[in-house]
């Protein structure tokens, strides 16, 4: 385990992008993170670095603690232990030590969370435009025409026809709802995006299109992202690096292609072989 984490920390770290003002460290550093549900382990002892512009995939079977880990990092559930340091450019800040207003502000501006079920991440009672505009209004934008313009622009970027701007998400297909949720999150130009099974529950053809879209947006916007999935094809396409989870712990971590093509841990081998059989 320790060896594995060392591997993640040093050998497999790709060169850190260097900012104009010189070297900069990881965007996010997680250490010893744990969340229990009573006596049951949600996740425990998780640590990793996420570098600016990097996409980290988290894979593992159902119940392995992926969602718990993602929510604990993003502050949607309170961790029991560990540290989460975030560096928005002015040096690392311990997110768990932030006041609640600061944490909430971070979460609705610099960070974004795309839920597995779009209904958890959308306001179903208001139009697509209002859903996309919410973060702008939360930031204090007070010009209806400009908010609407930004919403229209973002619908186009996630390939939703502008004519649907005033429709409620309940009238959208599952794939459209998921794309709307992504637009609603990215409109505030976050630096760090958390995605929990973003393509889960969608038809295969819809999944492929959404995956292409996410990949294009991540590249185009230079996003850093942590993507949880049980689908190895998703991480193969999206993730620079990979963490494999089992029973709430990270059992293997490394560059995506390395881990998938040459898995070291028996559990990863099983995971990879089962997907190859499909």
């Amino acid at each position, binding site marked *: 385990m320790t060896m594995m984490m060392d591997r993640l920390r040093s050998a497999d770290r790709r060169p850190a992008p260097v900012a104009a003002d010189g070297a900069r460290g990881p965007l996010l550093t997680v250490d010893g993170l744990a969340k229990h549900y009573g006596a049951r382990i949600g996740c425990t002892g998780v640590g990793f670095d996420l570098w600016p512009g990097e996409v980290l995939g988290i894979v593992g079977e159902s119940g392995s603690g992926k969602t718990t880990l993602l929510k604990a990092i993003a502050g949607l559930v309170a961790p029991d232990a560990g540290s989460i340091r975030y560096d928005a450019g002015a040096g690392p800040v311990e997110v768990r030590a932030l006041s609640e207003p600061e944490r909430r502000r971070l979460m609705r501006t610099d960070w974004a969370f795309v839920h597995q079920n779009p209904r958890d991440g959308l*306001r179903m009672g208001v139009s697509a435009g209002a859903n996309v505009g919410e973060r702008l209004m939360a*930031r204090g934008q007070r010009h209806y025409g400009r908010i609407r313009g930004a919403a229209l622009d973002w619908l186009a970027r996630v390939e939703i026809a502008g004519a649907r701007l005033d429709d409620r998400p309940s009238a959208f297909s599952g794939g459209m709802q998921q794309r709307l949720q992504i637009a609603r999150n990215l409109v505030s130009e976050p630096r760090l995006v958390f995605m929990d099974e973003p393509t889960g529950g969608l038809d295969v053809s819809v999944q492929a299109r959404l995956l292409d879209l996410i990949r294009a947006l991540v590249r185009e916007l230079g996003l850093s992202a942590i993507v949880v999935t049980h689908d190895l094809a998703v991480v193969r396409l999206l993730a620079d690096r990979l963490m494999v989870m089992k029973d709430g712990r990270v059992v293997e971590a490394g560059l995506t292609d390395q881990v998938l093509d040459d898995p070291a841990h028996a559990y990863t081998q099983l995971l990879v072989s089962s997907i190859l059989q499909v």
Partner: protein
Amino acid sequence: MSGHENASGAAGAEAYNFAYLDEQTKRMIRRAILKAVAIPGYQVPFASREMPMPYGWGTGGVQVTAACLTAEDRLKVIDQGADDTTNAVSIRKFFERTAGVKTTEETEQATIIQTRHRIPEAPLAEGQIMVFQVPIPEPLRFLEPRETETRKMHALEEYGLMHVKLYEDISVHGHIATTYAYPVLVEGRYVMDPSPIPKFDNPKLDDSPALMLFGAGREQRIYALPPHTRVQSLDFEDHPFDRGHWDEDCALCGDAGSYLDEVITDDAGGRIFVCSDTAHCRARRQAGHAGAASAPYEEAGA
């Protein structure tokens, strides 16, 4: 008959405290009011009491009025701008009976005005208290039903949702279609629901010399605007707040600047517009003002 009534009247007077509520309850409500005055626009929880009337009748407002009343007060009660509706009459009678205070229909004469849906047209003055009966005090309820969450949003000034609601209004109707309970920002800090008054009355909240108290009985909340508080109606830069207007003048008193109700005059589709503030309209007619339909209307009534 009269002897019997006297006896029961005397018994009733002993059974009730001045203005119905016991002193401890009044103290508790006054404390909530003081706190509300100290934090303009903030909803202060209070232990609402059972009142001898249903919730829909404004028990929150009645409790606030009861806690404020003194023997020297002159009380005015209106509902939809009128002093003679069932709700207004019964609340006025309740305080005549339990507090023995003088009542009035003239805004200028009143020291306390309890209202459900309007702010009188006559300008309010220093020393006057407006008491609003509030059904739903939480302006964020529309989009966020969780009380724990709305409280947090107030605490952290997370009011983006209010504009989501207004955005939605414009995208559906082409303009901000909210006409009642139009949300306001108080002293640049708390977003507040001004109770179901029409948005036409919102500008009267801003910098008013009177003290404004809001009581929600079922929801157990009291909030306040102390005199001369800054109250802004929420809007967008390119869709500014508009209180609305009528193309008509009041058919009875000719007022071109008051809030009008539409009144159907016959079954052939005839209709006129008249002041919703009946005391205001009467005072204008007494002073010699007349509207298009005033002469025949008054003759018929006389």
